[in-house]
Protein backbone atom coordinates (compact mmCIF):
# COMPACT_ATOMS: atom_id res chain seq x y z
CA UNK A 1 0.00 0.00 0.00
CA UNK A 2 1.24 3.40 -0.90
CA UNK A 3 0.96 4.71 2.64
CA UNK A 4 3.05 1.97 4.10
CA UNK A 5 5.76 2.58 1.54
CA UNK A 6 5.73 6.29 2.28
CA UNK A 7 6.22 5.51 5.95
CA UNK A 8 9.35 3.60 5.11
CA UNK A 9 10.71 6.48 3.14
CA UNK A 10 10.12 8.84 6.02
CA UNK A 11 11.80 6.49 8.40
CA UNK A 12 14.84 6.57 6.19
CA UNK A 13 14.99 10.34 6.34
CA UNK A 14 15.12 10.10 10.10
CA UNK A 15 18.46 8.43 10.06
CA UNK A 16 20.09 11.79 9.64
CA UNK A 17 23.35 11.85 11.43
CA UNK A 18 23.68 13.73 14.63
CA UNK A 19 27.20 14.57 15.44
CA UNK A 20 27.38 16.25 18.77
CA UNK A 21 30.52 18.24 18.89
CA UNK A 22 33.09 16.74 21.15
CA UNK A 23 32.40 18.11 24.59
CA UNK A 24 34.62 21.13 25.03
CA UNK A 25 36.64 21.44 28.15
CA UNK A 26 34.17 21.56 30.99
CA UNK A 27 36.43 23.85 32.90
CA UNK A 28 37.06 27.16 31.24
CA UNK A 29 39.03 30.15 32.26
CA UNK A 30 37.90 33.71 31.97
CA UNK A 31 37.77 34.77 28.35
CA UNK A 32 34.66 33.08 27.08
CA UNK A 33 33.15 29.73 26.38
CA UNK A 34 30.32 28.51 24.18
CA UNK A 35 27.27 26.43 24.89
CA UNK A 36 25.72 25.00 21.75
CA UNK A 37 21.98 24.58 21.36
CA UNK A 38 21.39 21.66 19.05
CA UNK A 39 18.68 19.03 18.80
CA UNK A 40 16.71 20.65 21.60
CA UNK A 41 19.53 20.35 24.13
CA UNK A 42 22.31 22.45 25.64
CA UNK A 43 25.84 21.14 25.13
CA UNK A 44 27.58 20.90 27.49
CA UNK A 45 24.56 20.58 29.70
CA UNK A 46 26.66 21.26 32.80
CA UNK A 47 29.43 23.77 32.54
CA UNK A 48 31.98 24.81 35.17
CA UNK A 49 33.69 28.20 34.81
CA UNK A 50 35.67 30.66 36.89
CA UNK A 51 33.96 33.80 38.12
CA UNK A 52 34.18 36.52 35.49
CA UNK A 53 33.72 34.15 32.57
CA UNK A 54 31.47 35.18 29.70
CA UNK A 55 29.35 32.32 28.39
CA UNK A 56 27.87 32.46 24.89
CA UNK A 57 24.95 30.30 23.83
CA UNK A 58 24.48 29.75 20.07
CA UNK A 59 21.28 28.30 18.61
CA UNK A 60 22.04 25.76 15.89
CA UNK A 61 18.46 24.47 15.60
CA UNK A 62 15.88 25.35 12.95
CA UNK A 63 13.52 26.18 15.81
CA UNK A 64 13.86 29.21 18.12
CA UNK A 65 14.95 28.76 21.72
CA UNK A 66 15.64 30.94 24.73
CA UNK A 67 18.12 30.81 27.60
CA UNK A 68 16.31 31.65 30.83
CA UNK A 69 17.74 31.45 34.33
CA UNK A 70 15.50 29.48 36.68
CA UNK A 71 16.23 32.13 39.30
CA UNK A 72 15.39 34.95 36.84
CA UNK A 73 18.93 36.28 36.97
CA UNK A 74 19.19 36.37 33.18
CA UNK A 75 17.02 35.72 30.15
CA UNK A 76 17.81 35.97 26.47
CA UNK A 77 15.54 37.26 23.78
CA UNK A 78 14.18 34.58 21.48
CA UNK A 79 17.15 33.13 19.60
CA UNK A 80 16.39 32.21 16.02
CA UNK A 81 18.77 29.98 14.07
CA UNK A 82 22.42 31.06 14.54
CA UNK A 83 21.50 33.80 17.02
CA UNK A 84 23.67 34.06 20.12
CA UNK A 85 23.28 35.27 23.69
CA UNK A 86 26.04 36.09 26.15
CA UNK A 87 26.08 36.48 29.91
CA UNK A 88 29.02 37.12 32.23
CA UNK A 89 28.99 35.24 35.51
CA UNK A 90 30.64 37.33 38.20
CA UNK A 91 29.54 35.58 41.38
CA UNK A 92 30.39 32.01 42.35
CA UNK A 93 27.38 29.72 42.56
CA UNK A 94 25.30 27.16 40.69
CA UNK A 95 23.05 28.64 38.04
CA UNK A 96 20.33 26.51 36.50
CA UNK A 97 18.65 27.62 33.29
CA UNK A 98 16.16 26.34 30.72
CA UNK A 99 14.49 27.17 27.40
CA UNK A 100 11.26 28.97 28.22
CA UNK A 101 9.70 27.67 24.99
CA UNK A 102 10.73 24.04 25.50
CA UNK A 103 11.16 23.77 29.26
CA UNK A 104 12.34 20.16 29.13
CA UNK A 105 15.61 21.68 27.84
CA UNK A 106 17.69 22.46 30.93
CA UNK A 107 21.30 23.25 31.73
CA UNK A 108 23.56 24.32 34.59
CA UNK A 109 26.50 26.69 34.89
CA UNK A 110 28.69 26.21 37.95
CA UNK A 111 30.73 29.30 38.70
CA UNK A 112 33.76 28.89 40.91
CA UNK A 113 35.73 31.58 42.69
CA UNK A 114 38.90 32.72 40.99
CA UNK A 115 40.81 31.01 43.76
CA UNK A 116 39.30 27.72 42.64
CA UNK A 117 37.17 27.14 45.73
CA UNK A 118 34.76 24.27 45.23
CA UNK A 119 32.38 25.47 47.93
CA UNK A 120 30.16 27.24 45.43
CA UNK A 121 26.77 28.01 46.97
CA UNK A 122 23.56 27.16 45.10
CA UNK A 123 22.26 30.41 43.63
CA UNK A 124 19.78 28.89 41.23
CA UNK A 125 16.83 29.87 43.42
CA UNK A 126 17.86 33.45 43.87
CA UNK A 127 16.05 36.13 41.93
Amino acid at each position, binding site marked *: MKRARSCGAFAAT*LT*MAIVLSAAPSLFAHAGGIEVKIDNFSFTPQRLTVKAGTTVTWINGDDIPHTVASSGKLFKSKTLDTDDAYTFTFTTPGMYEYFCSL*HPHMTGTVVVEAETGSRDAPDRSGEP
Partner: protein
Amino acid sequence: MSEFYSDPDRGTGVSRRKILECMTWAGTGVLWTIAGGVPHTMGIIGETMAAEPSGLTFLQISDSHVGFDKPANPNVIGTLEEAIGKINTLPVKPSFMIHTGDISHLSKPAEFDDAERIISQARLDVHYVPGEHDLIDEEVKLYRERYGRGTKGTGWYSFDAAGVHFIGLVNVANLKAGGQGSLGEEQLAWLADDLQDRSTSAPIVVFAHIPLWALYPAWGWGTEDSGRALDLLKRFGSVTVLNGHIHQVMQKVEGNVTFHTACSTAFPQPAPGTAPSPGPMKVPGEKLRALLGVTDVTFKTGQQRLAIIDRPLNG
Protein backbone atom coordinates in the same frame (compact mmCIF):
# COMPACT_ATOMS: atom_id res chain seq x y z
CA MET B 1 -10.76 5.35 7.93
CA SER B 2 -12.98 3.40 10.26
CA GLU B 3 -9.96 1.54 11.59
CA PHE B 4 -8.46 4.75 12.80
CA TYR B 5 -10.60 5.43 15.81
CA SER B 6 -10.95 3.04 18.66
CA ASP B 7 -14.20 1.83 20.14
CA PRO B 8 -14.57 3.58 23.50
CA ASP B 9 -16.28 0.46 24.85
CA ARG B 10 -13.14 -1.53 24.25
CA GLY B 11 -11.06 1.30 25.62
CA THR B 12 -8.20 0.56 23.28
CA GLY B 13 -5.74 3.06 21.94
CA VAL B 14 -4.52 3.25 18.40
CA SER B 15 -1.82 0.80 17.43
CA ARG B 16 1.57 2.10 16.38
CA ARG B 17 0.98 0.72 12.90
CA LYS B 18 -2.24 2.67 12.65
CA ILE B 19 -0.55 5.80 13.88
CA LEU B 20 2.12 5.44 11.24
CA GLU B 21 -0.50 4.88 8.57
CA CYS B 22 -2.29 7.97 9.71
CA MET B 23 0.82 10.05 9.60
CA THR B 24 1.13 9.55 5.91
CA TRP B 25 -2.19 11.11 5.17
CA ALA B 26 -2.08 13.63 7.93
CA GLY B 27 -1.33 17.17 7.12
CA THR B 28 -3.88 19.58 5.81
CA GLY B 29 -6.55 20.08 8.39
CA VAL B 30 -9.12 18.04 10.16
CA LEU B 31 -12.79 18.30 9.33
CA TRP B 32 -14.75 17.35 12.41
CA THR B 33 -18.31 16.09 12.48
CA ILE B 34 -19.80 16.22 15.92
CA ALA B 35 -22.43 13.52 16.00
CA GLY B 36 -24.17 13.42 19.34
CA GLY B 37 -21.07 14.15 21.28
CA VAL B 38 -18.09 11.97 20.52
CA PRO B 39 -15.92 12.88 17.58
CA HIS B 40 -14.35 10.43 15.22
CA THR B 41 -12.41 10.49 12.04
CA MET B 42 -14.39 9.59 8.99
CA GLY B 43 -11.74 9.51 6.37
CA ILE B 44 -10.69 11.95 3.77
CA ILE B 45 -12.88 15.01 3.50
CA GLY B 46 -14.37 14.09 0.17
CA GLU B 47 -15.51 10.66 1.40
CA THR B 48 -17.09 12.15 4.46
CA MET B 49 -18.94 14.78 2.60
CA ALA B 50 -20.57 12.11 0.51
CA ALA B 51 -21.52 10.08 3.55
CA GLU B 52 -22.36 12.79 6.08
CA PRO B 53 -23.76 15.83 4.37
CA SER B 54 -25.52 17.34 7.40
CA GLY B 55 -24.73 18.39 10.96
CA LEU B 56 -22.50 21.06 12.46
CA THR B 57 -19.15 21.00 10.75
CA PHE B 58 -16.08 22.89 11.83
CA LEU B 59 -12.44 22.88 10.81
CA GLN B 60 -9.22 22.67 12.71
CA ILE B 61 -5.98 24.05 11.33
CA SER B 62 -2.77 24.26 13.28
CA ASP B 63 0.88 25.22 13.36
CA SER B 64 1.01 27.58 10.39
CA HIS B 65 4.44 28.88 11.55
CA VAL B 66 4.25 31.85 9.22
CA GLY B 67 7.80 33.22 9.09
CA PHE B 68 9.54 29.82 9.08
CA ASP B 69 11.86 29.67 6.07
CA LYS B 70 14.16 26.69 6.65
CA PRO B 71 14.71 23.78 4.26
CA ALA B 72 11.95 21.61 5.80
CA ASN B 73 9.56 24.02 4.04
CA PRO B 74 10.87 27.36 2.76
CA ASN B 75 7.36 28.28 1.56
CA VAL B 76 5.00 28.03 4.55
CA ILE B 77 2.94 30.88 3.09
CA GLY B 78 2.33 28.75 0.01
CA THR B 79 1.28 25.65 1.94
CA LEU B 80 -1.02 27.70 4.19
CA GLU B 81 -2.59 29.17 1.07
CA GLU B 82 -3.05 25.65 -0.28
CA ALA B 83 -4.74 24.56 2.95
CA ILE B 84 -7.14 27.50 2.82
CA GLY B 85 -7.73 26.76 -0.85
CA LYS B 86 -8.72 23.21 0.10
CA ILE B 87 -11.12 24.53 2.70
CA ASN B 88 -12.73 26.77 0.11
CA THR B 89 -13.50 23.77 -2.08
CA LEU B 90 -15.45 21.91 0.62
CA PRO B 91 -18.94 21.11 -0.66
CA VAL B 92 -20.45 22.02 2.72
CA LYS B 93 -19.20 25.27 4.18
CA PRO B 94 -18.03 24.68 7.78
CA SER B 95 -19.63 26.76 10.53
CA PHE B 96 -16.31 28.04 11.82
CA MET B 97 -12.63 27.23 12.19
CA ILE B 98 -10.36 26.51 15.16
CA HIS B 99 -6.65 27.31 14.99
CA THR B 100 -4.68 25.42 17.64
CA GLY B 101 -1.69 27.73 17.74
CA ASP B 102 1.73 28.54 16.36
CA ILE B 103 0.09 30.90 13.92
CA SER B 104 3.45 32.66 13.59
CA HIS B 105 7.00 31.39 13.90
CA LEU B 106 8.55 34.31 15.83
CA SER B 107 5.56 36.45 16.91
CA LYS B 108 6.49 39.21 14.45
CA PRO B 109 3.76 41.65 13.37
CA ALA B 110 4.37 40.85 9.69
CA GLU B 111 3.95 37.14 10.39
CA PHE B 112 0.62 37.67 12.13
CA ASP B 113 -0.39 40.01 9.28
CA ASP B 114 0.43 37.43 6.61
CA ALA B 115 -1.39 34.68 8.51
CA GLU B 116 -4.47 36.85 8.89
CA ARG B 117 -4.44 37.85 5.23
CA ILE B 118 -4.41 34.21 4.13
CA ILE B 119 -6.65 32.61 6.77
CA SER B 120 -9.31 35.29 6.32
CA GLN B 121 -9.70 34.10 2.73
CA ALA B 122 -11.65 31.14 4.11
CA ARG B 123 -14.31 33.68 5.18
CA LEU B 124 -14.98 31.78 8.40
CA ASP B 125 -15.01 32.82 12.04
CA VAL B 126 -11.74 31.58 13.54
CA HIS B 127 -11.30 30.67 17.21
CA TYR B 128 -7.62 30.75 18.15
CA VAL B 129 -5.48 29.56 21.02
CA PRO B 130 -1.79 30.51 21.13
CA GLY B 131 1.19 28.24 20.61
CA GLU B 132 4.52 28.99 22.26
CA HIS B 133 5.70 30.63 19.03
CA ASP B 134 2.89 33.20 19.32
CA LEU B 135 4.06 34.54 22.70
CA ILE B 136 7.72 35.38 22.03
CA ASP B 137 7.58 39.06 21.13
CA GLU B 138 9.51 41.18 23.60
CA GLU B 139 6.47 42.42 25.49
CA VAL B 140 4.34 39.30 24.90
CA LYS B 141 1.43 41.44 23.80
CA LEU B 142 0.84 40.94 20.07
CA TYR B 143 -1.19 37.72 20.39
CA ARG B 144 -3.46 39.22 23.03
CA GLU B 145 -3.92 42.40 21.02
CA ARG B 146 -4.89 40.53 17.88
CA TYR B 147 -6.71 37.43 19.09
CA GLY B 148 -7.38 37.89 22.78
CA ARG B 149 -10.49 40.06 22.77
CA GLY B 150 -13.05 38.67 25.21
CA THR B 151 -10.66 36.07 26.61
CA LYS B 152 -9.44 35.56 30.17
CA GLY B 153 -5.91 35.37 31.57
CA THR B 154 -3.39 34.56 28.86
CA GLY B 155 -6.17 33.93 26.34
CA TRP B 156 -8.57 31.18 27.45
CA TYR B 157 -12.34 31.27 26.79
CA SER B 158 -15.38 29.16 25.98
CA PHE B 159 -18.34 29.40 23.63
CA ASP B 160 -21.32 27.32 22.54
CA ALA B 161 -22.31 26.18 19.08
CA ALA B 162 -25.11 23.81 18.05
CA GLY B 163 -25.43 22.41 21.55
CA VAL B 164 -21.71 21.74 21.90
CA HIS B 165 -19.62 23.57 24.51
CA PHE B 166 -16.20 24.61 23.18
CA ILE B 167 -13.33 25.48 25.52
CA GLY B 168 -10.09 27.07 24.29
CA LEU B 169 -7.21 26.64 26.76
CA VAL B 170 -3.68 28.10 26.90
CA ASN B 171 -0.91 25.71 27.97
CA VAL B 172 2.11 27.54 26.53
CA ALA B 173 2.47 30.48 28.96
CA ASN B 174 4.66 30.75 32.07
CA LEU B 175 6.37 27.41 31.52
CA LYS B 176 8.68 26.21 34.26
CA ALA B 177 12.17 24.71 34.05
CA GLY B 178 12.16 20.98 33.49
CA GLY B 179 8.42 20.93 32.87
CA GLN B 180 6.07 20.54 29.94
CA GLY B 181 3.01 22.49 28.85
CA SER B 182 1.15 24.05 31.76
CA LEU B 183 -2.37 25.37 32.41
CA GLY B 184 -1.77 26.90 35.84
CA GLU B 185 -3.97 27.47 38.87
CA GLU B 186 -5.86 30.50 37.59
CA GLN B 187 -6.94 28.76 34.40
CA LEU B 188 -7.88 25.51 36.17
CA ALA B 189 -10.05 27.49 38.60
CA TRP B 190 -11.72 29.21 35.67
CA LEU B 191 -12.30 25.84 33.98
CA ALA B 192 -13.91 24.39 37.11
CA ASP B 193 -16.21 27.40 37.24
CA ASP B 194 -17.00 27.22 33.52
CA LEU B 195 -18.05 23.56 33.82
CA GLN B 196 -19.77 23.75 37.18
CA ASP B 197 -23.42 24.07 36.21
CA ARG B 198 -23.20 22.30 32.91
CA SER B 199 -25.23 19.16 32.19
CA THR B 200 -23.16 15.99 31.88
CA SER B 201 -24.96 15.27 28.63
CA ALA B 202 -23.52 18.40 27.02
CA PRO B 203 -20.85 17.43 24.48
CA ILE B 204 -17.57 19.21 25.24
CA VAL B 205 -14.78 20.08 22.83
CA VAL B 206 -11.54 21.28 24.43
CA PHE B 207 -8.77 22.71 22.28
CA ALA B 208 -5.25 23.80 23.20
CA HIS B 209 -1.85 23.90 21.52
CA ILE B 210 0.27 21.30 23.34
CA PRO B 211 -1.32 17.85 23.74
CA LEU B 212 -3.34 17.50 26.94
CA TRP B 213 -2.08 13.97 27.47
CA ALA B 214 1.40 12.61 28.12
CA LEU B 215 2.13 11.90 24.49
CA TYR B 216 5.94 11.97 24.73
CA PRO B 217 7.25 13.78 27.79
CA ALA B 218 10.90 13.30 26.77
CA TRP B 219 10.23 15.86 24.02
CA GLY B 220 7.95 17.94 26.19
CA TRP B 221 4.88 16.66 24.35
CA GLY B 222 2.44 16.81 27.20
CA THR B 223 0.89 19.17 29.75
CA GLU B 224 2.01 18.71 33.32
CA ASP B 225 -1.32 19.58 34.95
CA SER B 226 -3.64 18.24 32.23
CA GLY B 227 -4.78 15.48 34.61
CA ARG B 228 -6.48 18.09 36.75
CA ALA B 229 -8.34 19.47 33.75
CA LEU B 230 -9.38 15.97 32.68
CA ASP B 231 -10.64 15.25 36.21
CA LEU B 232 -13.00 18.19 35.81
CA LEU B 233 -14.17 16.79 32.47
CA LYS B 234 -14.59 13.12 33.35
CA ARG B 235 -18.24 13.39 34.44
CA PHE B 236 -19.24 14.45 30.93
CA GLY B 237 -20.46 11.82 28.53
CA SER B 238 -18.58 13.12 25.53
CA VAL B 239 -15.31 15.02 25.58
CA THR B 240 -13.15 15.70 22.55
CA VAL B 241 -9.67 17.17 22.99
CA LEU B 242 -8.07 18.79 19.96
CA ASN B 243 -4.40 19.78 19.96
CA GLY B 244 -1.58 20.74 17.61
CA HIS B 245 2.13 21.27 18.40
CA ILE B 246 3.47 17.89 17.29
CA HIS B 247 2.82 18.39 13.56
CA GLN B 248 1.36 14.93 12.99
CA VAL B 249 -1.87 13.07 13.63
CA MET B 250 -2.14 11.08 16.81
CA GLN B 251 -5.37 9.88 18.34
CA LYS B 252 -6.41 7.91 21.37
CA VAL B 253 -9.63 7.18 23.21
CA GLU B 254 -9.72 6.96 26.98
CA GLY B 255 -13.14 6.37 28.47
CA ASN B 256 -15.39 9.14 27.22
CA VAL B 257 -12.49 11.29 26.10
CA THR B 258 -11.17 11.30 22.55
CA PHE B 259 -7.78 12.95 22.00
CA HIS B 260 -6.71 14.07 18.56
CA THR B 261 -3.73 16.08 17.32
CA ALA B 262 -3.78 17.80 13.95
CA CYS B 263 -1.14 18.23 11.30
CA SER B 264 0.74 21.42 10.67
CA THR B 265 0.23 23.43 7.50
CA ALA B 266 3.96 24.25 7.57
CA PHE B 267 6.32 21.30 8.19
CA PRO B 268 6.18 17.77 9.63
CA GLN B 269 7.86 16.61 12.81
CA PRO B 270 9.15 13.10 13.50
CA ALA B 271 7.16 10.42 15.30
CA PRO B 272 8.02 10.27 19.01
CA GLY B 273 11.49 8.89 19.63
CA THR B 274 12.31 8.27 15.97
CA ALA B 275 14.77 11.16 15.68
CA PRO B 276 17.34 12.84 17.92
CA SER B 277 14.98 15.76 18.55
CA PRO B 278 11.50 16.98 17.60
CA GLY B 279 12.94 19.49 15.12
CA PRO B 280 11.45 20.00 11.65
CA MET B 281 11.54 16.82 9.57
CA LYS B 282 13.05 17.27 6.14
CA VAL B 283 11.32 15.14 3.54
CA PRO B 284 11.61 15.10 -0.23
CA GLY B 285 9.56 17.86 -1.84
CA GLU B 286 7.01 15.51 -3.37
CA LYS B 287 6.35 13.96 0.05
CA LEU B 288 5.83 17.20 1.94
CA ARG B 289 2.20 17.75 1.01
CA ALA B 290 1.25 14.28 2.21
CA LEU B 291 2.37 15.35 5.69
CA LEU B 292 0.67 18.74 5.88
CA GLY B 293 -3.03 19.27 6.20
CA VAL B 294 -6.24 20.40 7.85
CA THR B 295 -8.89 18.62 9.90
CA ASP B 296 -12.67 18.69 9.61
CA VAL B 297 -15.14 17.79 12.32
CA THR B 298 -18.86 17.17 12.01
CA PHE B 299 -21.41 16.97 14.79
CA LYS B 300 -24.78 15.33 14.20
CA THR B 301 -27.40 15.68 16.89
CA GLY B 302 -28.58 12.37 18.27
CA GLN B 303 -25.47 10.42 17.34
CA GLN B 304 -22.69 9.48 19.68
CA ARG B 305 -19.62 10.47 17.76
CA LEU B 306 -17.98 13.45 16.23
CA ALA B 307 -16.55 12.65 12.86
CA ILE B 308 -12.95 13.76 12.49
CA ILE B 309 -11.29 13.86 9.12
CA ASP B 310 -7.67 14.68 8.48
CA ARG B 311 -7.09 15.93 5.00
CA PRO B 312 -3.61 16.10 3.51
CA LEU B 313 -2.69 18.96 1.19
CA ASN B 314 -2.12 16.54 -1.65
CA GLY B 315 -5.32 14.59 -0.98
